[in-house]
């Protein structure tokens, strides 16, 4: 399609490499009357040493003209499908109305983090002395903005017909479980520019987002949700580029100076752990919230972390980088965390902005099959108990607020992995105050920078300090979280969502 243009201009078409070089090398300039350190004041305080920015290379060699051209094409395709989805009442084609609750969690838990990623990359893109890095961050920042916008647009169709979609922007830094992803990004954004890049660009994008987008989006397709699969794959086409940059960043930092190696390793350890904790929510979505299931969390973890991540860390071994600390522990956790998390949400279902439910008998059997070592022994009895209580008209909701981990902000729901009947407790005393953690990983992170994490905005403690309205939980939910209490929360059974679905489908 470029052929006409090239002949009429009669100019030699530049190769990818030439175009990229013109953009990222020849656009830079020397500082003649200003000190370079004043221009890039954040470049040194983290201890990272950069000796030659010109070694930064984008393997895709993407230039702005190509970027806009292909992004525009992606958008056109996406919005054509979103129009078709809305015009054809696509919301009626989902497998089961329970499915929509996974999308509510996506909109409230993940989309606002796309916006934080946009802000983060915009910020760090200003902080690097090298043009290649600045261009890459600029593109990623625009990508992330596109992601939040397309996600909100795609899910707006569901907002017309289902509860729980109305106040995601208000909820994201207030609601107890949403503080988990929000504080994850606050942690990264309040770090220096290189830590942010290792945290989000490498540890999150390269090592972990596949687990979020690929099986989950494939799951959306399998559950008849054309809108979500389309924005998901459209976003993921950008992610493939982000992942590649994430890997290049790591190699660049490690090749620049040997002193960077231990710093980068520490960040990989930290953000791998933080990322796996965050992905507990995704594991729960895959195992419990998708009515038609593509693969279990455990299988996804094996394909996208153990296999893909294993290959990656073998590749990085030549720099002296090792597998993230606690990778062996996480291998045990894949058997447990999705079950422990969904039980937590089920038992706190009065305080969630989406519906929860007991898995059907077929789903319980699927879980037994996928988790032969653990499900029947440790987790099925909980659902037998829940079924019995529900049958007696006593659907179980806990009556008090849970203790949270200071670092990841998740309720202290994780057990010792060698004894899944025992909650894991870790604590420390710092400057006279006691702090609690769900794991050694979270405790290590606190210990490394206590002055950062003493500031954790823990939703339960904020409620108990009276900073979230009240006095009762119900007022917090309605006035501070902006839930429609009685519609957004509680069990799927008997919910307005369920009632409307039955009317649309003409079943009693």
């Amino acid at each position, binding site marked *: *399609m*470029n*052929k006409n243009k090239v002949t009429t201009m009669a100019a030699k078409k530049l*190769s*990818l*490499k030439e175009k990229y070089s013109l953009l990222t090398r020849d656009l830079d300039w020397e500082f003649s009357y200003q000190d370079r350190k004043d221009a890039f004041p954040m470049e040194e305080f983290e201890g990272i040493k950069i000796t030659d920015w010109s070694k930064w290379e984008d*393997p*895709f*060699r*993407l230039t702005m003209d*190509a970027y806009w051209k*292909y992004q525009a*094409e*992606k958008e056109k*395709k996406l919005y054509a499908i979103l129009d078709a989805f809305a015009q054809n009442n696509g919301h009626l084609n989902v497998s089961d109305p329970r499915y929509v609750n996974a999308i509510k969690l996506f909109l409230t838990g993940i989309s606002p983090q796309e916006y934080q990623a946009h802000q983060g990359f915009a910020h760090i893109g200003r902080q690097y002395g090298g043009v290649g890095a600045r261009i890459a961050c600029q593109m990623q920042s625009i990508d992330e903005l596109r992601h939040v916008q397309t996600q909100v647009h795609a899910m707006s169709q569901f907002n017309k017909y289902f509860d729980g979609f109305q106040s995601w922007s208000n909820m994201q830094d207030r609601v107890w479980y949403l503080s988990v992803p929000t504080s994850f990004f606050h942690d990264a954004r309040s770090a220096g520019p290189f830590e942010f890049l290792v945290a989000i660009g490498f540890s999150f994008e390269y090592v972990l987002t*596949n687990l979020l*987008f*690929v099986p989950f*989006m*494939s*799951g959306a*397709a*399998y559950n008849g949700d054309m809108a979500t*699969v389309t924005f998901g*794959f459209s976003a*993921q*086409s950008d*992610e*493939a*580029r982000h*992942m*590649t940059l994430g*890997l290049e960043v790591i190699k660049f930092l490690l090749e620049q100076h040997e002193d960077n190696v231990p710093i980068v390793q520490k960040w990989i350890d930290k953000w791998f752990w933080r990322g796996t904790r965050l992905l507990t929510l995704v594991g729960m979505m895959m195992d419990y919230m998708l009515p038609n299931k*593509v693969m279990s969390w455990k299988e996804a973890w094996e394909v996208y972390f153990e*296999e*893909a991540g*294993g*290959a*990656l860390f*073998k*590749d990085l*071994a*030549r720099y002296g980088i090792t597998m993230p600390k606690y990778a062996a522990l996480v291998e045990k956790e894949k058997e447990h965390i999705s079950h422990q998390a969904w039980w937590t949400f089920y038992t706190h279902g009065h305080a969630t902005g989406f519906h929860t439910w007991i898995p059907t008998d077929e789903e319980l059997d699927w879980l037994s099959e996928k988790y032969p070592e653990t499900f029947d022994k440790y987790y099925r009895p909980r659902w037998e108990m829940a079924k019995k209580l529900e049958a007696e008209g006593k659907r179980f909701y806990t009556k008090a607020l849970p203790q949270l981990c200071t670092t990841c902000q998740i309720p202290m729901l994780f057990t010792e992995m060698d004894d899944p009947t025992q909650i894991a407790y870790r604590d420390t005393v710092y400057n006279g105050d006691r702090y609690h953690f769900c794991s050694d990983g979270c405790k290590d992170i606190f210990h490394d920078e206590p002055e950062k994490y003493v500031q954790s905005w823990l939703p339960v403690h904020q409620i108990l300090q009276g900073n979230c309205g009240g006095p009762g939980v119900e007022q917090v939910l309605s006035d501070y979280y902006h839930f429609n209490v009685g519609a957004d929360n509680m069990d799927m059974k008997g919910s307005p969502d369920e009632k409307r679905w039955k009317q649309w489908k003409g079943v009693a």
Partner: protein
Amino acid sequence: MSKVYLALQDNDEARYIVEAIEEDNPESTIIHQPAMIRIEAEGYLVVKRETVEEKMGRDWDMQELHLSLITLGGNVDEDDDQLSLSWNE
């Protein structure tokens, strides 16, 4: 040797790309999943512009791959004629 991989959306364009990849990488494995196609190979995988153009019957820019790409694993090297994935071990 570890696996490199590439996942593409299951759409009309990608089907030709997958055909081309299969031809240029006889050792690769093609896995069909809902809405996506995953291609994996031991150590090395290449997408060649010429082969894709042959399959599609039209000019094709390497960067058009981005329109169908979902994810990949391995070190990327791209120029006007090919995109390759590899691990250094």
